[in-house]
């Protein structure tokens, strides 16, 4: 059994994270001033606070921002997403040494504009994974390997030959799984190491696009890792997939 502790900040009796062995999970890192607890005014102020809360949470758990593998941003107003990047690049200036992230619209408590969650692995250093011809416009790698873990971004359904979204839903799903495959290969892992999938579909009625290939890769339904589907589209992209893998999970 691993060690287990909660992560606190000074003004708040509610923990903002948990450490389970080397793995740190940050929860509901919000836009409150890290000292006074006051909610910042506007998205820039709340993001500045949230980034500082992120740094303090991982440090309170015994690590540093070097140990962060993946961050999720939840936004009350999805139009605020462009504001994520300037402080992101300031915190992670080296383009070859960044965590990956995703952002999602979410119903947040009144007044709150942003919350973050994160995964970090203590005592380990991240390695960024980039794919040729499949790159985010945002300043993030396609995936991060850190310690025994692999955290992907929302992998893009791009055709690497054109560096553009593949045409048609079926083709997008095919390229998407090939690109996830390339991420897993680059991490030195295999599909049997995958412990979670999160699928993003412009139309949830298209579930078989993601669920079908997922089931093919894990034919034993009892041992199949969970694939959680959520409605989300980005421009021409109809399907995306985010995975977490842990080396040795399938053994």
């Amino acid at each position, binding site marked *: 059994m691993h060690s287990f502790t909660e992560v606190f900040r000074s003004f*708040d*009796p509610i923990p903002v994270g948990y450490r389970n062995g080397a793995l740190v999970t940050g929860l509901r890192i919000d836009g409150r001033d890290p000292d006074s607890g006051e909610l910042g005014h506007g998205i820039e102020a709340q993001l500045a606070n949230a980034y500082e809360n992120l740094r303090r949470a991982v440090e309170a758990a015994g690590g540093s921002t070097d140990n962060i593998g993946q961050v999720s941003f939840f936004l009350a107003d999805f139009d605020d997403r462009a504001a994520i990047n300037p402080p992101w690049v300031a915190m992670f200036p080296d383009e070859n040494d960044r965590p990956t992230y995703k952002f999602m619209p979410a119903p947040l408590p009144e007044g709150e504009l942003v919350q973050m969650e994160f995964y970090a692995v203590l005592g380990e250093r991240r390695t960024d994974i980039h794919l040729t011809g499949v790159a985010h416009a945002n300043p993030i790698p396609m995936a991060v390997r850190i310690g025994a873990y692999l955290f992907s971004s929302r992998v893009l359904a791009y055709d690497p030959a054109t560096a553009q979204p593949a045409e048609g839903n079926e083709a997008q799903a095919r390229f998407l799984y090939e690109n996830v495959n390339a991420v897993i290969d680059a991490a030195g892992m295999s599909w049997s190491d995958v412990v979670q999938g999160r699928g993003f579909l412009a139309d949830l009625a298209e579930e078989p696009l993601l669920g079908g290939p997922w089931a093919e890769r894990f034919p034993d339904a009892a041992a199949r890792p969970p694939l959680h589907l959520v409605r989300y589209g980005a421009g021409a992209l109809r399907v995306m997939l985010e995975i*977490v893998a842990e080396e040795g999970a399938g053994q």
Partner: protein
Amino acid sequence: MSGLHTLFEVYPEAARATLPLGLRVEDLVVAGGINGCDPETGEPVGGLEEQVAAAYQKMAFLMESAGGSLDNVGRAVAYVTDIEHREPVNGQWWEAVFPDPADRPAYKVILAELPPGELVRLDFVGVLNARRTRFDLPGIPARDPTVRIGEMIFSSRCHGIDGATGELAPGGLVPEAARTFQTLRELAVAAGGSPHDIVQLNAFGKTADYIAPARAEFARAFADIDPKPAFNPLVNFITPRFEISVEMIAVVGGQR
């Protein structure tokens, strides 16, 4: 999967819900900030009773989605905004979910500032493939129990009552703190672990004045333990006749 390498988030059933309810890591299920709000709209579902019921339902749903049940919950914390709200949350509503006093999770209900309209938040830790067992020390009353589940030991908030006399250790904060730390060490042993297994202590007092003396007493009481448990002193509600109460998390074999 073998259960040795498992990591996934659990989401509400609602299709538009994007925030995870909690996380399974190996056999551990952890959830923070579970609220009494509709997962799609984020709106509180009603008054205190409705919100608490919704939060408890999310706890049950999360445990079942993670592969267990409420039988696997080891420890829970509820946060309320008003001292008058503590009792039904700590008492009758909780007891309705866990009717057997011999088989309840460790629990506490404390105060927190919550977003407007929200009246309760819930954190909990569950351990799959394990069943909780309650441990008591002779002469020391405990409304909320200390439990062992799997390799984890969770105390509820303990206080300075001396089991030999049945009385609160006389002399105020420092003797109470000394007795409380001793009680927690004894509980760790009673539950089949040792003081070396204690990974975290959360202390509670009425004002920040208790923190420095409590920290000094913690250093004395755990002078023989290395590495030391994390010590988090908080200012919050405690039973008025006590100067300090402390809860522990221990992982048998985890710290060594």
